[in-house]
């Protein structure tokens, strides 16, 4: 069990919506984030994402930019236009960037860009930072 997990035992369970069409990535994120005591929901397609995001009201979204033949960023922007809360942080997963965006937490930051492949633990830390603001 990672040290970080112990730190998060004291706080309320945050809801994370993982949006990725790859089964293995979804399983990895589910396992990792559950171990970090997050409540994890999964959307495996753009349709599921658009439907689920208003139902489960996540505290943070982990969104694969390449969602089948759809662009995750465009979908997110469309959701914002439909009234989705822009304060909900989003972690975009991408294969096109090189470095994991492990920048130090900044106040008010609502999104992060994380390159695949990523270190699950680092990603969990990034998510924690974003949720805690």
């Amino acid at each position: 069990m990672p040290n970080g997990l112990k730190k998060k035992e004291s706080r309320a369970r945050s809801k994370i919506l993982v949006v990725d069409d790859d089964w293995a990535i979804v399983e990895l994120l589910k396992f990792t984030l559950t171990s970090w005591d997050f409540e994890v929901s999964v959307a495996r397609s753009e349709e599921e994402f658009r439907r689920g995001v208003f139902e489960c009201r996540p505290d943070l979204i982990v969104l694969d930019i390449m969602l089948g033949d759809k662009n995750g960023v465009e979908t997110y922007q469309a959701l914002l236009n439909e009234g989705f809360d822009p304060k909900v942080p989003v972690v975009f997963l991408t294969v096109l960037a090189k470095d994991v965006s492990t920048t130090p937490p900044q106040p008010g930051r609502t999104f992060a860009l994380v390159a695949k492949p990523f270190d699950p633990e680092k990603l969990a830390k990034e998510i924690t930072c974003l949720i805690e603001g």
Partner: protein
Amino acid sequence: MNVLDLSRDNLNLPEPHLIRSFRHISQGASILVIIVGFLVLIGWVFDLPNLKSVLPRFVTMKANTAIGFVLAGTSLFLLADPMKRKNRTPWLAHGCSSVVALIGGLTLCEYLFGWDLGIDRLVFQETGEAVGTSVLGRMSPLTAFNFFIIGFALISLDFPSRDRITYFLVSVAGFVSLTAFLGYAYGIKSFYGIAAQTEMALHTSLAFGALSLGVLFSRPDRGLMKIVASDCVAGIVARRLLPSAVVVPVALGSLRLLGQRMGFYSMEFGLSLTVLFSVVIFVSLIGWNVVSLHRLDSERKLSEQTLARLAAIVDSSDEGIISTTLDGTIFSWNKAAERIYGYSADEVIGLPVSILVPPDRPGEITDLMERIKSGERIQQYETVRLRKDGQRIHVCLTASPIKADKKIIGFSGIIHDISEQKRIEEMIRRTQEELERRVSERTLDLQRANERLQRLDEMKSDFIALASHELKTPLTAIEGFLAVILKGMVGEFTDQQKEFLGVIKGATERLNRLVDELLDFSKIDSGQVKMKREPTDLGKLLKEEVIVFKMQAKNKEIELGEIIDDRLNEILCDRDRLKEVLDNLISNAIKYTPKRGKIMVEARNFEDSVQIEVRDTGIGIRVEDQEKIFEPFQHLRKSGLDGEKSTGLGLALVKKIIEAQGGRVAVRSNEGVGSAFLVTLPIKR
């Protein structure tokens, strides 16, 4: 050059001023004759002997004669200038002439047949004794004869075909009057009186002389008088000698006779004087004419030579030169024209120029002629003409008027055969069309190829994105789960299991790096990556790089150092990409340098560039391999000296990155001694 014969008549045209003078003389003579007639009639009306006969001892001019002169003078006056009559038939003039001829004819009949027709007393009655008169009131048979022929001469004046008859009749009348005059001058009665018949009066003979001259000079534009009025040699000689030939002998004869009668000298002396003066005067006249004619002859020869030269030039011209009359009849045709049109000069001269015009261009010649007449000069006029064999040829015409005395008398044309030029132009045009067609086909092909390339490029971009995703997504899962396992999050493993998992992790990381480089290379290669231009402190960057790799080098007991020029220029480049290049070069150097080796990173300033050199004392690269090392997947050695793995793309990527920023990369290496990689980047100020 061949010139049409019909033009010969036009060469000796009468001089316009002489034509005018001759007409004036003619009109003056007619008026004089009318005046004489009237004066004599006045003499008859008022019985003035001096008007009827010049001297009392001379015969009178009969009233019929005076009337004849008035009528003949009037007729001549009316017939003097046919141009002024505007082609109206001169009925009055012809009527007068006819009456004159009738008077003469009837009187002659009276003499010949002994008739008395009463015409002699019709107007005036001559009474008493009349000097030199056989029948009172009847004119001399010589006078009657002269009126008869002068009457016909006047009538025939308007008929050019009867010119010879007119000249003959007038000459006879003139001869008769001159004879009569000489009779009076020299006192030879038989010259003005035939047998015992009525004599011709002195003023009658003079009036006939004037009338004859008047008739002769009334038509200076044709026949013999046209020559006299012309500027040619014959005209000049005639004008100079003819008056002298008449006047000089008469005058000399009169003087001789006068002197002889007055007892100044004997007949022999007088004859000698006459002969002498005749010789002197005629020799002088002839001498004067000889000089003038010689000058004219010289001028004429000069003109002929000039003409011959011009004709030679025209004949030797490569361009067809032709001329036509006003109505378009061809009258000159040079050899080039023969060559161009296929007609010889003999064949074509005298024919209308329209035979050269194709039937589909009717009216073209007339139109051109009208344009020239209106003062336009036809230059470089391109058209089509017909050869004798019916072949159509392209010609270029320059046409101009031929003028004489400021009047257009014909047209000249210079013809340039441009058929060959047209043929070549047509060939060029076709070739150009063919070329244009090919170019447009090629352009279309290129467009299609370009579209295909664009599609391929788009497909490549799509492929890169897809490949990145499809390769990296499973790698993410593998690396992620390995990290979870290795961190003990799913339970503990034996040491051997951990070691094997470590091997899997290393391989996965290498695979990940390979994918990264492959994608990077593809992106740069397809131009998808835009290099940034940021001011970069190269010295600082190099020092940082050396520090990063210092530990790795130390582990291999390799000395890593740097020589940085203090005055190193700041350059504009993509800092991250340059860092990638340096990472590649320094890590490669460490990879292929044995223990206790040396690696030196050096940066130098040049005028417009900076050079970075990464030099090692490694194993070096074979000469034949040096060219290949910048190509992708040239796995010259599969791994470094300590088994470090290589993706085979590092140097290819280095080359792409540096070239994308306008720089160049090179290698110098000796196998077993070491290698030096040189990166040159422009200073972009």
